[in-house]
C-alpha cells in the first residue's frame, strides 16, 4: 500500500461532449452500498436537461446519417476504451452496488460485451427490419428503419452500469441521440462512462448523461416537445403513469417500465432497438 494521498475525481455531468457542473450549482452526496461517503455528484436541474436536449438535437443529424458501419465502429470503440478502464468500473460498481469483486468484474465484462453486441447490430438493422414491398403497381417500394430522434432515457436505478449500457446502447445503435438520467443513488459508473464516451469517437451531444433525480428531471423530459421518445425503465416507483401522460402531449414513443428491474444479463433481443426506430417507406415509379 502506498501512503500517497489519492487525487480524487470530481463527478460532473456529461453534456454536449463536455463535463459541466450543474447550472444550478447543486450537488448531492453519493454513498456506497453500506452508506459510506463516496463522492459528491452533480444534481442535474431542469435547465441541464434543457441544455442536454438542445445538444442531443444538434448532434442528431450527423449521428443519424453516419454510415451504419461508422456507427458500429464508434460503438465498438466504446467497448475498447471501456475495457481499458475495467478496473475503475469494477471498483465503482462494487462500491455502488455492493457487489463482490468477482461479481463486479462479471458485470463490467457483460457491460463491455453489450457494447460489442450492439456495435454489430448497426449495419444489420436495415437488412433485418427493412423490406422491399411488392406493391400492385409499377413502383419500387421499400421500407427502411430510421431513428426516432432524441430519446430521453431514465436509466435503471439498481444496475448502474450494465443496466445503463443495456438501455443506452440500443438507442444509439439505431442512430438516435440520448439524454440519460442516471441511477440516482448509483451515478458514479455513469459519469465514468461519460469519460469513456468522450474519448471514444462518440460525437459530442450524441450521449448526454445527467446525474440526479429522475423524479425531478423526468417530467421535464417527458413533456419536452423536442424529445421524440422516452424510456421509462428507471422511472421512480409510482411515477410512470404521470410521465407517460406527460409524454402523450407530444405523441412520444414510450417504453413503459417493467414491473421490476429485469435481469440485465439476459439476451437483450432487438426490442429495445425497434422501440426507438421509425419505418420510412419510399415509393418510386418504375418506367423508361
Amino acid at each position, binding site marked *: 500500500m502506498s501512503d500517497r494521498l489519492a487525487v480524487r475525481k470530481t463527478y460532473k455531468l456529461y453534456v454536449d461532449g463536455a463535463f459541466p457542473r450543474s447550472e444550478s450549482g447543486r450537488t448531492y452526496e453519493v454513498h456506497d452500498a453500506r452508506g459510506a461517503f463516496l463522492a459528491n455528484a452533480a444534481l442535474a436541474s431542469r435547465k441541464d436537461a434543457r441544455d442536454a436536449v438542445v445538444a442531443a438535437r444538434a448532434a442528431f443529424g450527423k449521428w443519424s446519417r453516419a454510415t451504419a458501419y461508422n456507427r458500429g465502429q464508434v460503438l465498438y470503440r466504446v467497448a475498447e476504451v471501456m475495457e481499458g478502464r475495467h478496473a475503475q468500473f469494477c471498483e465503482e460498481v462494487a462500491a455502488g452496488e455492493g457487489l463482490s469483486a468477482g461479481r463486479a468484474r462479471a458485470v463490467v465484462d457483460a457491460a463491455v460485451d453489450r457494447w460489442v453486441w450492439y456495435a454489430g447490430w448497426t449495419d444489420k438493422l436495415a437488412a433485418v427490419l427493412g423490406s422491399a414491398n411488392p406493391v400492385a403497381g409499377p413502383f419500387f*417500394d421499400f421500407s427502411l428503419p430510421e431513428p426516432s430522434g432524441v430519446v430521453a432515457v431514465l436509466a435503471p436505478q439498481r444496475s448502474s452500469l450494465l443496466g445503463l449500457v443495456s438501455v443506452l446502447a440500443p438507442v444509439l445503435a439505431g442512430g438516435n441521440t440520448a439524454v440519460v438520467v442516471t441511477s440516482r443513488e448509483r451515478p458514479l459508473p455513469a459519469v465514468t462512462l461519460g469519460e469513456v464516451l468522450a474519448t471514444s469517437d462518440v460525437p459530442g451531444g450524441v450521449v448526454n448523461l445527467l446525474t440526479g433525480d429522475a423524479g425531478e428531471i423526468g417530467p421535464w423530459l417527458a413533456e419536452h416537445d423536442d424529445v421524440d421518445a422516452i424510456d421509462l425503465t428507471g422511472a421512480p416507483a409510482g411515477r410512470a403513469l404521470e410521465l407517460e401522460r406527460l409524454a*402523450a402531449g407530444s*405523441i412520444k414513443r414510450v417504453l413503459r417500465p417493467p414491473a421490476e428491474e429485469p435481469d440485465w444479463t439476459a439476451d437483450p433481443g432487438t426490442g429495445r432497438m425497434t422501440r426507438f426506430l421509425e419505418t*420510412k*417507406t419510399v415509393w*418510386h*415509379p418504375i418506367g423508361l
Partner: protein
Amino acid sequence: MSQLFEYAPAPESRSIVDVAPSYGLFVDGEFVDGSGESMKTVNPATEEVLSEIAVGTEADVDRAVKAARRAFTRVWGPMRPADRGKYLFRIARILQERAREFAVLESLDNGKPIRESRDVDVPLAAAHFFYHAGWADKLGHAGLGPDPRPHGVAGQVIPWNFPLLMLAWKVAPALATGNTVVLKPAETTPLTALLFAEVCRQADLPPGVVNIVTGAGDTGRAVVEHEDVDKVAFTGSTEVGRSIARAVAGTRKVLTLELGGKAANIVFDDAPIDQAVEGIVRGIFFNQGHVCCAGSRLLVQESVHDEVIASLQRRIGSLRVGDPLDKNTDIGAINSADQLARIRELSDIGEAEGAHRWQPACELPDRGFWFPPTVFTDVSPAHRIARDEVFGPVLSVLTFRTPDEAVAKANNTTYGLSAGIWTEKGSRILAIADRLRAGVVWANTFNQFDPTSPFGGYKQSGYGREGGRHGLAAYLKESS
C-alpha cells in the same frame, strides 16, 4: 367549329344500395339496439338524412368487449391459423363481389366521388383483406419470433375520410393475427361499416370476432378506456390521439396511432412538370383533401414557381366539382358542416394573414357541404395555413431556392406523416428522401397506397405502421 365538350350527367345508380331507415349495433354476430339516443347520418352532398344510427353507451361497449373476449378465448384464438386466413379470404371475395354496392354507399355517406370509392377505397379494402388473409398461417415468418401471439381484444376507432378502407386497415391485420375486434366507426360515416357487418355474416365469421359499435366521441372513449381491451388502434386527429395516449397511459394496453399531417410536396426545377402537376392535384384534391397524408404544402423551387403555378391553375380549372355519384366528378362534398366550417375558417385566416387565395370559377350545388379547390400563394412558413392541418381542398404554396432549404422547410412541422419529391435526378431523390422526417415518401408520385406497403408517421403524426410485414407488429406480442 370548336365547342365545349360538356359531359352529360353520368350518375351511378343509387338503387343498388338498400339503406335501412335505422341501424343497430353489431354485437356478437347480431344487430342489437343501442342504449344511447340514436343519431342521424346524412348525405353531405344533399344534407338528406340517410338513416338513424344507434349510439353505443358504455354498457353497449362492455357487451361488445365481452363478446370479443369470448370469441377470442373460445373460437378465434384457438382456431387453426389457416382457417382464420380462409375467413379473411372469404371476406375479401365478398367485398369484391359487392364492390359496387360498397362504392355507392361510401359515396352517399361520405361525399367522396364515386370514381374514387369505386377505383380506390373499395378495391384497396378488398386487397387489404386478401393480403392479410395470407399472413394468418405464416406469422412465424414475420420477424417477431417463431410463435408471436395476439394481444386479445383490439379496440379500434377510425375516421370518416376513408370509412371502409380504414376499417380494412384495422380489422384485417387484427383478425389475421388472431385478435378479435370492437370497432367504432366515425360518427358521420357509419354505413359501410354496418354493411361490412353483413359481410361478416355472409362469410359465417364466428359471432363476436368483429363487433361494430357506432356512436360519437363518447362511444370511442368507452372503447379505448374499457379495461378488458388489450390493444388500441386509432386513426384520426392528433388532438384526439393525445387524449387517447393519455387515457391508455399506465395500462397494459398497446397503442398505435395514425394522426394528422402537413406534408410537403417538393417540386425541383428539373421535375417532370406535367406529372408533378398531376401529383400536386392528386396530393391535395384527392378525397377533397380529407387525407391525413395530403400534400398540403407545395414547396416549389423559385425558378419554376410561375410555370408550375400557371400549369396547376390551368389543371385545377378542369377539375369537376359536384355530385359524388356522378362518375365524372373529381371533387365531391365536404364530409360535414363542421369540417366545412373549419376549412372556411382556416382559409379566411390564410387570407387575413396575407396569403393570396385563388379558386377556379366553379359552380357549387345549393344544398350540401362544398368547398372549391383552393390554392394559396405567397404563403410564409409562419402562416397558419402553412402549419395547421386544414383537412380540405386547400393547398399552400411556398418556395425554396436550394435542396437544403427545401428539406429544412419540409421538416419544419410538428407532423411527419408523408412527403413528396419531384425531380428527374435519381440521386437527388434518394438524398432528399433520406433527410425527410416522414414515414412515407413518394418520389415522382403521390398518394399511392398498397396493403404490402407500411404506412404511418414520424413525430406527432403518430406511431406504429399499417400494412406490410411491419403492420403486423402492432397486433402481435413478440415471442422468443
